[in-house]
């Protein structure tokens, strides 16, 4: 049983947290900092970004120059361990007609080690979508209820960006955001091309430190009544460096300049002495007593392959939306024959991903560019927030919700496939001519990627597949999926818009522009914004959790990952997952104090 903290495990904890990613890391941090005794169970192995990150390694040092393979689907250097679209020995299935792709990893910190770090707040509209357009579901709380937690999370993890005062694109409180990096050349060119089309281009919000965090004042602001917590945080915050404008964030960051649960949340949580972590621990079931209260969890110790049980007063699932639903559905008992916390029948329902579509453009103004360093903060410096709320409200578009645009390009580190297909531009050049063409075309392509809101529907859900178990003997998930016209119409609009921007920049599209959205849209799950499946709501009959992400049926059971989401705005979900997790943790502690839990 690998245990990564110094203490031996206690016999009983206040809280068990399942999962160590964005949700589990945030929940454990908030609780441990306030003295709550927490046991974290993580299915993956221990992982240390400080020693394990290949910061400056070149393609030539990697097999196949670092190209993606089924073993390492986002490339050799990507910080994904035992995962990707498949986890060895842990399958999932799709019902006929479905083709959901479920990205997972098995490592301490989960997907926060390799995520894109795009950190956008949901806005006021995004919490009340049904009230606005009659579609989907409303959240039981408002933006204002969550806003203070957005401020806290952004201050803690460090997010660069600006306040632009745009519709449904919330500003952060003064002093919260880090300054954004300067735009890259191609990003300025996109901005210029977008301007006649009235498409805004503003600094993106990314969880990367553009300067060292103010470790003298921030911790006190985050923990105003708890000097010990502030001191603990300050000591760890001090170890984080500012970005040095090189290396790819997807590999992780050994200088802790970007956000990973393993560099930002877990170190201070461990330093409190209140958090124990057991890695290689695959949770399969939440146990309950006769009264229906949660008592702990069963997990498989992956090294001995034996079942173990650990106890706590409160159980928090944070294993990623679908996995938490899986654990609930597998926790069957005479009291809960349908799975735990599932009296509404909604566990597994309203699974959502993000609508994705892209078009690539070749831009003559970028050809033969003098060498310049476009590495920057690895991620995007600029983006386009959704800008057509007025048209939508006036019924002028055939889809109800928005999307944002991410553009990637520039003279970035060459990777496998760098000039695949260039013959379309060069008419099949080879020889000395090809060398000249390569110099000419390097950095002249821009990919426009749309990320749009999906509306929850009855056809998209997961359930237990009765015929299949994983290598730990745990029944696996089966996915069901059907896009509605809302999503496919939006994807078609993305293609049209991207083609217009490329044209406005004087460029040419080099990938198909589809008018049929079904051809434009990515596969379900492919954008890896897995949310829904344990929906929150105001009514126990139609939702799994209340607004504190607390089970209606089992009051000492919580889910703090993407599961509670009842809408999936175009704002990538992780920042919101963390804000809501911190809010739940505060509720847990307030309830503990009152003696309710």
């Amino acid at each position, binding site marked *: 049983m690998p245990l990564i903290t110094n203490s031996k495990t206690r016999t009983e904890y206040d809280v068990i947290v399942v999962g160590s990613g964005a949700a589990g890391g945030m929940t454990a941090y908030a609780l441990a900092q306030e003295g709550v005794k927490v046991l974290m169970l993580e299915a993956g192995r221990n*992982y240390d970004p400080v020693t394990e990150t290949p910061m400056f390694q070149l393609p030539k040092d990697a*097999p196949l120059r670092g190209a993606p393979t089924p073993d390492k689907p986002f490339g050799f250097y990507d910080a994904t361990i035992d995962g990707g679209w498949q986890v060895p020995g842990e399958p999932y299935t799709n019902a006929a007609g479905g083709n959901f792709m479920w990205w997972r990893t098995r490592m301490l910190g989960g997907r926060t080690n390799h995520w894109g770090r795009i950190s956008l707040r949901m806005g006021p509209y995004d919490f009340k979508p049904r009230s606005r357009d009659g579609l989907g579901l409303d959240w039981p709380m408002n933006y204002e209820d969550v806003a203070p937690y957005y401020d806290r999370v952004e201050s803690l993890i460090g997010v660069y960006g600006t306040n632009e005062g745009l519709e449904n694109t919330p500003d952060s409180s003064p002093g919260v955001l880090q300054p954004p990096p300067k735009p890259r050349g191609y990003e300025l060119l996109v901005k210029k091309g977008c301007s006649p089309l009235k498409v805004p281009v503003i600094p993106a919000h990314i969880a990367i430190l553009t300067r060292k965090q103010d470790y003298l004042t921030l911790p006190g602001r985050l923990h105003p009544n708890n000097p010990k917590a502030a001191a603990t945080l300050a000591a760890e915050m001090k170890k984080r460096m500012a970005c040095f404008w090189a290396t790819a964030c997807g590999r992780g960051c050994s200088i802790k300049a970007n956000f990973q649960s393993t560099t930002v949340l877990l170190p201070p949580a461990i330093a409190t002495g209140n958090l124990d972590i057991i890695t290689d621990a695959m949770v399969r079931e939440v146990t309950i007593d006769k009264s229906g209260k949660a008592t702990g969890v069963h997990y498989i110790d992956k090294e001995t392959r034996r079942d173990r049980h650990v106890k706590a007063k409160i159980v928090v699932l944070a294993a990623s939306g679908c996995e938490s639903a899986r654990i609930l559905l597998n926790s069957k008992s005479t009291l809960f024959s349908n799975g735990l916390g599932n009296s509404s029948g909604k566990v597994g329902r309203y699974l959502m991903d993000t609508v994705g579509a892209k078009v690539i453009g070749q831009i003559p103004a970028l050809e033969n560019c003098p060498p310049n360093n476009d590495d*920057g903060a690895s991620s995007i410096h600029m983006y386009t927030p959704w800008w057509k709320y007025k048209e939508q409200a006036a019924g002028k578009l055939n889809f109800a919700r928005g999307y944002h645009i991410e553009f990637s390009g520039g003279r970035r580190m060459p990777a496998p496939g*760098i000039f695949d297909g260039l013959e379309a531009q060069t008419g099949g050049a080879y020889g000395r001519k*090809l060398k000249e063409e390569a110099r000419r075309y390097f950095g002249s392509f821009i990919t426009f990627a749309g990320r749009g809101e999906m509306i929850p529907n009855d056809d998209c859900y997961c359930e237990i597949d009765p015929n299949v178990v994983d290598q730990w003997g745990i029944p696996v998930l089966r996915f069901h999926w059907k896009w509605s016209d809302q999503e496919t119409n939006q994807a078609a609009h993305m293609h049209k818009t991207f083609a217009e921007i490329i044209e406005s920049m004087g460029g040419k599209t080099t990938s198909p522009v589809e008018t049929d959205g079904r051809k434009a849209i990515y596969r379900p799950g492919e954008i890896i914004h897995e949310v829904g499946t344990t929906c929150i709501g105001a009514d126990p009959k139609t939702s799994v959790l209340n607004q504190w992400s607390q089970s209606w049926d089992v009051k000492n059971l919580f889910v703090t990952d993407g599961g509670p989401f009842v809408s999936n705005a175009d704002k990538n979900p992780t920042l919101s997952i963390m804000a809501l997790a911190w809010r739940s943790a505060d509720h847990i502690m307030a309830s503990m104090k009152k003696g309710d839990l």
Partner: protein
Amino acid sequence: MSTPENKMGRREALKWMAGAGAAGAFAPATLAQKVENAGTPTRSATDPNLVKAVLDWKGVLAESELKILTALCDLILPKDDKSPSASQAGVPAFINEWVSAIYPIQQADKLVVRGGLAWLNTESLRRNGKDFVDLTEAEKTGICDDIAYLPKAKPEFAFGALFFAKVRDLTSTGFYTSEIGMKDIGYIGNVPLPKFDGPSPEVLKHMGLA
């Protein structure tokens, strides 16, 4: 453009990184520390050592195939004033590594490359009565011009054109992901900088933004 003054230099950056690591060592518990079962992770294809990668498969191409491949790669990316040739940048060895991998994409490419190399040699024997490697530059170009671009190739050269496109793409990958190739196209990143200045006035002017 990055000027020498604001470059931090790799050594300083490594020191900086080491500092970040060392700082962690004084903490009561670090993520690297496991009390039970401490030790290095068990390595597998889905959890390889990323910091020091190992390549654990052998090349499948025969010596004779590598000779044809080398000649072809150097025809695709020859030496010029600015940079050495594809083979000088290690491209044939890279393609051998590529087509020898067990994954579906590479296995499919293996068939195209091997079949193509045989096809190319047969074609050169048919046209010139000589092995491809013994052809003059003009004779090699004579064949390659016919297969350089699928949309313009005659129907009987369709496979040849597919093969040529594949080898051209792999040659470009091998060359431009090497340090020689990165230098050739002017990739100047992967160096730590104390600040990010954005594009230089020269670059802005080039893009029509100044």
